[in-house]
């Protein structure tokens, strides 16, 4: 095994186990922390794929925002009044079956794709991937339209948030 593969396996184990802990732990703050671990694992995966920009944006956006989630978790829960009820309801069998089928179906579809077993081509040296990404985002024959639509969506959300926050004063 190459060092890259070892890091990938460790990282995949980290992601899967922390994702499991997010949904099984009873402590909401611990769930937020496990979510941090899972998202950080995803950032490492991006790093392994040489997508440094994506990895860092993952850390800034998700781990930076988890702090806010954390605050909500602290403010909305109390240790003494922690939920003691069962964590699953009677539909768990069907959900497990559906999840398994989805996973199996996706694996089947992907394995019939001819790129599934190929190793990715190494990046040509001297190519600044960040520059390519930046140009693609503003180039008319690439992604300028989705990029602008996403910006307008975010702007609308921002304006809406300001409106709701300011109208509650009156």
């Amino acid at each position: 095994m190459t060092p890259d593969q070892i890091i990938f396996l460790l990282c995949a184990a980290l992601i899967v186990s922390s994702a499991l802990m997010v949904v099984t732990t009873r402590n909401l703050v611990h769930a937020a922390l496990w979510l941090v671990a899972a998202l950080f694992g995803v950032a490492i995966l991006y790093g392994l794929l040489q997508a440094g920009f994506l990895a860092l944006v993952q850390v800034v956006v998700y781990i930076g925002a988890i702090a806010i989630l954390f605050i909500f978790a602290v403010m909305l829960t109390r240790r003494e009044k922690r939920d003691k009820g069962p964590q699953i309801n009677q539909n768990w069998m069907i959900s497990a079956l559906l999840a398994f089928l989805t996973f199996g179906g996706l694996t089947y579809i992907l394995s019939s794709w001819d790129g599934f077993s190929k190793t990715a081509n190494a990046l040509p040296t001297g190519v600044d991937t960040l520059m390519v990404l930046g140009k693609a985002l503003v180039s008319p024959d690439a992604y300028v339209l989705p990029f602008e639509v996403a910006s307008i969506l975010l702007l609308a959300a921002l304006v809406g948030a300001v409106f709701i926050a300011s109208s509650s004063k009156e």
Partner: protein
Amino acid sequence: MTFWNDPINLIAGWLRDVFMGWGMTAGLANVITSLIGIIVMILFAMLIAIALVWVERKVVARFQDRLGPNRIGPFGIFQPFADIVKLIIKEDITPAGADKVVFNMAPVISLASVILIWAIVPLASKIYGVDINVGVLYLVAVGSFGTLSVIMAGWASNNKYALIGAFRMVATMISYEIPMVVALMIPTIIAGTMSVKGITEAQSNLWFVILSPLGLLLFMISAIAELGRSPFDLNEAESEIVAGFHIEYSGMKFGLFYAGELLHAFTFGGFMAVLFFGGYGGFFGLEKLSAFTWLSNPFIELVVFLVKALIGYWIIMWVKYSMPRIRIDHMLTFNWKFLTPLAFVLLMMTALFDKLLAPTQFYVVGMFLSNVVLAWIVIEILRRYSKRERVEHEKNAEPVIQVAHH
């Protein structure tokens, strides 16, 4: 390649050859050499942190008209070692009701968030961890681990003061991250790269502080807020919430927070140097003259970087020990109503003038003057605003009643 021209790569290459001589594959030898490099870099950063304890105590003493540590060694220079021994032999207390794992993890993550920055600090042209093309963004990303460690410490301590301190710290860090990112975009735009080494090299003829003095100011203010140092030290406001998020920590766990804070301040001093004062280089083209080629020696560059970083660190200390703490609503208003709009205007202006003036010979003058004009407009707006406020205030104030003396 001799030792004096490229020490780190020479040693690394030699180590790699030794490991491969023992029968390792090239890949494994590379991984082990990199691990050794990481450990050496961390040790270097920690040694600096030990020295900073002395620097900080000595400088604060001068600001407060005291002598500071002066008993152990000349000028008290061995004081940090006594401090470390004291911290290690102190009783290690975990408060009742604390969340033990999270409580013990918080100081480690706090220090790690600072040490991680050192991966990209360009100490000299050939002495650095990695040179990634998203270096500036990395600085911001690593900062979010600092936020996380603070709130973990605050929550896990099971202490109201600690939690209040953590909430305040998160409010500060989330708000001031915006002007910080925008201030970091300014050297990026001027240099045309996000790599910190590329930004340093782009300043070999001219420091960016001349092209964008306002950018430096914005970066410095938001860096101080990010550090949680005075005047933004609401997170540990001693007179209100005792010590904030690290109230329950004793011994070396407190030591980790303290070392992390000092090293963080020094690192931001270093980044002020890297982004605006030419980093390890920036000799205004002097090193190209044949008589001054020794300036590009890595050891000289290392010393230059450390001196510039110390000056930046000293400015941060100067602000810390001269300014009173600001109120939390003032802190938020200052950010959202003043710094953030200013940062965005400055960003747009820098991007525009950089493109317009770059081919002409008025580039430097134009960039500098545009900053001066913007600063003047901002000061004028502030002056009018405060005048209006004052007039309003005086109109509503109760008239002074003359009290007759009997």
